């Protein structure tokens, strides 16, 4: 059946090819390749914006006594006299987190690579529904626009933290950002969830239905497994955030009391009665924790593929890799309470979450050992993409290990909500995932644009970035261990932390280095898009079938028939074969010398 529909699609495309106007080709495109580029470019814009925000608040944290006149130039009343306004500081922290987690590492990462690679690597002409796919992007775009708009309104953006805990997020009396800013945040998030669901359903359907002949589930590259599991996580968890946001909207606008009770603020009691702020946290983290893996799994999938290809070696334990992703995905739904050990949740319930949370370390350890085993006795091509993938593994280890401490409730008590946890999730979730994304961009840039990115700038980008990340977030653990709370504008009100807070100067310096290094990437990206060296057909000598499609990218992906797949994606350096790779399209009958028992 899939063959038939594919032929149909190919036929369609021939008929329409000459009618592509600017609007249908670049704007309202239904082609997965164009949509993936749209996601990527939007995500890069959002990432630069959010990174710029972090630079501003790192200036405040690193040099709290110093005045920066340019802040007044760019921020106006929020930077009066060169000092960042405390309420805008909270706004920046909130929007930085929101953009990075949702717009860059969820929308940007899955949107770019699921769109690009799912049809290419399963062997499909396009996504199951090109139209839904287009809608998914435009919901995402609208969502980004609303979020950006919330930055320039009179009362400032949402500023209760990206986790938007009520009552703070529900009461404009409590903080100015909970007025219009929060409304826009919620509108933006509703649009975003729409985008994520439209995309997710499309990804799952495409992988299940549109695989080419011979592409059984156990021959899929690990990227596709990762994207599929991610999409399922999103489909199951985003609706819960949607519900949480809807109830919050009701509390804010229609006076219901889902999350609010017994509140006295600004000299007057409010009417709310019987609600529970903890309920919101349960709903939020029921999405929020799977969200961590929605961010991380695609990055791990990209890294698995890149590490195998550039090591010229099969990924070690292919089935264990799939199994561990499935286990992580399952566990991710029953660990949300570890964000809530000290909210007053029943301690026994806390114990259950400790148990499930620490179990996550087992499949994670399996993944790390498998990556290391893949590198052992390999023949590693240290391309920029490979270095970024190795950086991801390094962060996955560092951040994963501190997760063991945070997941243990007895130890969490004293580091909850302080800089220790900030350091932890920036390494394991933020930096790991963004490194996976960089690795993906460097690796599949030729597949997107038919050109190569400049490798020297790529190396420079990698080394400055890994230095920036470790330099920023390693010392940050100690600020946390010294007891410094997060989301503090300044540490002037208590002198006991003075010595520890001095580390902020060091942290901010590294953050600025790492931040500025991203400009190298941006320049390299846009420059190479137009002026990069033309790519060869299969620049990394990869086995997967996206490299058999014409490198310039045509509508319908393959002229004529879609190739048939005969083997898994990881026959690298197989003994008995001359080349160090055997593409998935090569039948066993052509590789008699290298076939293993049972491969005929």
């Amino acid at each position: 059946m899939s063959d038939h529909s594919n032929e149909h699609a190919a036929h369609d495309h021939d008929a329409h090819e000459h009618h592509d106007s600017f609007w249908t080709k670049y704007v309202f495109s239904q082609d997965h390749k164009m949509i993936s580029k749209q996601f990527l470019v939007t995500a890069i814009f959002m990432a630069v914006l959010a990174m710029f925000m972090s630079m501003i608040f790192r200036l405040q944290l690193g040099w709290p006594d110093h005045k920066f006149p340019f802040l007044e130039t760019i921020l106006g009343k929020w930077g009066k006299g060169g000092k960042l306004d405390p309420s805008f500081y909270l706004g920046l922290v909130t929007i930085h987190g929101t953009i990075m987690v949702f717009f860059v590492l969820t929308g940007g990462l899955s949107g770019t690579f699921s769109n690009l690679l799912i049809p290419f690597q399963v062997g499909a002409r396009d996504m199951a529904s090109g139209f839904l796919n287009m809608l998914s992007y435009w919901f995402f775009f609208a969502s980004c626009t609303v979020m950006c708009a919330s930055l320039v309104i009179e009362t400032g953006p949402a500023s209760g933290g990206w986790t938007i805990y009520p009552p703070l997020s529900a009461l404009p009396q409590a903080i100015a950002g909970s007025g219009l800013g929060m409304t826009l945040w919620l509108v933006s998030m509703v649009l975003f969830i729409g985008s994520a669901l439209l995309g997710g359903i499309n990804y799952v359907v495409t992988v299940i239905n549109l695989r080419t002949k011979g592409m059984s589930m156990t021959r899929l590259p690990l990227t596709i497994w990762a994207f599929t599991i991610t999409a399922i996580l999103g489909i199951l968890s985003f609706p819960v955030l949607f519900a949480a946001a809807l109830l919050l909207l009701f509390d804010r606008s229609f006076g219901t009391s889902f999350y609010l009770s017994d509140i006295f603020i600004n000299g007057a009691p409010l009417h709310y009665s019987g609600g529970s702020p903890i309920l919101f946290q349960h709903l939020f983290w029921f999405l929020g924790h799977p969200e961590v893996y929605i961010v991380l799994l695609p990055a791990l999938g990209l890294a698995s593929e890149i590490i195998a290809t550039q090591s010229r070696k099969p990924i070690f334990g292919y089935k264990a890799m799939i199994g561990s992703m499935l286990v992580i995905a399952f566990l991710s739904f029953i660990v949300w309470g570890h964000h809530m050990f000290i909210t007053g949740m029943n301690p026994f319930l806390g114990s259950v979450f400790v148990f499930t949370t620490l179990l996550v370390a087992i499949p994670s350890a399996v993944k790390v050992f498998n990556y290391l085993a893949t590198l052992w006795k390999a023949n590693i091509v240290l391309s920029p993409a490979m270095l970024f993938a190795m950086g991801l593994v390094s962060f996955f280890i560092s951040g994963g290990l501190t997760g063991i401490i945070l997941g243990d409730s007895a130890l969490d008590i004293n580091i909850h909500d302080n800089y220790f946890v900030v350091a932890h999730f920036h390494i394991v979730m933020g930096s790991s995932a963004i490194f996976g994304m960089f690795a993906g961009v460097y690796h599949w840039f030729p597949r997107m644009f038919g050109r190569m990115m400049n490798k020297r700038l790529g190396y420079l980008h990698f080394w400055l970035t890994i230095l920036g990340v470790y330099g920023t977030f390693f010392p940050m653990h100690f600020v946390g261990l010294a007891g410094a709370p997060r989301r503090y504008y300044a540490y002037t009100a208590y002198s006991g932390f003075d010595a520890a807070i001095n580390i902020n100067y060091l942290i901010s310096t590294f953050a600025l280095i790492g931040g500025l290094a991203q400009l190298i990437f941006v320049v390299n990206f846009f420059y190479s898009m137009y002026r990069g060296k033309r790519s060869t057909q299969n620049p990394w000598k990869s086995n997967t079938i996206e490299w058999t499609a014409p490198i310039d990218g045509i509508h319908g992906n393959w002229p004529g028939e879609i190739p048939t797949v005969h083997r898994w994606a990881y026959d690298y350096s197989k003994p008995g074969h001359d080349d160090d790779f055997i593409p998935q399209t090569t039948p066993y009958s052509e590789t008699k010398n290298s076939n293993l028992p049972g491969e005929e």
Partner: protein
Amino acid sequence: MHTLLVWIVVILTVITVVRAIRILELVNELGGDGHEDEITEKDNNFNGKLLIWFLVIGLGGMIYFTFDAKKYLLPVSASVHGVLTDSYLNWNFALIGVVFIITQILLFGWGYKYRHKKTQKAYFYPDNHKLEFWWTVIPGIVLIGLIVYGLKLWNEITAPAPKNSMVIELYGEQFRWTARYAGGDNKLGNSFFRWITDDNQLGVDEKDPASKDDKIARELHLPVNIPIEFKIHSRDVIHSVYLPHLRAQMNAVPGMTTEIALTSTITTTEMKKITNNPKFEYVLLCNKICGVSHYMMNMKVVIDTQDDFRKWYKEQSLVFQPAESPAPADSAKGMAGSDVIGKKVVAAR
């Protein structure tokens, strides 16, 4: 003037970038064999060496930083349970430190050792079930150990406070903490947010007999070695009681009561000596984002000897001052400190 300077810098930066790109282009053209963007042996050697340099300098820097950081970390725990969690934390750090160092050395080291050479071929090694079995089981066993010990501590820490604990309410509001001491009956008078007035900031029920001897303070004083039970409330948004030196934290949530039970072990005076810092003070910080002045919301904490505590407590004011000025003897009689410290605590020890 500043604006002008900023613009000049921006324009110069743009020019620099454009020039740099142009130079890059020219260099690329000079290279001329059409394979500049292929990864060469030279690239592999260079980046492989950088991996080793990064590993050595990075690990060295981290280890140095870790030992150097001792001087700004929190001093020894001033609570009974904190000593246990601290030593458990150190064991955890030792364990993850070892795993961290070994795995990073393998990652970066093999990145260098097995860098690509035209003459070599990778070893085709798709799986090894025995190996995979062991590296699933061993982390599993270690983690079960951590879970069991961690939960044992957790259960001890979160166990209901001992019956003889001194009850203190911690009340959070934007952006201030108030402590209410339960007095001689060791019972807090009822409170409700609708009863809040200018004179009754905590909304305490005046008719409740338990509230008669309740005292409020804006500094939290704790008698050393006495088990304390904190009842935590908030009137507006979520706050969090964070006592880093006592290794204790609990959210203050409007509409519900949360609790911490702990016993302090080191007085402020002793801690000044231990930290060798005459300015040392304990502190209660708000650790849940609660509004613009979140960063300034804290309360000074003083851990007193039991005698000093009694003296301090005597001077604190009742929630409801009786209409006629009470005889000093009466108020002393009804005072919580003397009772709790006098009888119950002796029993507790």
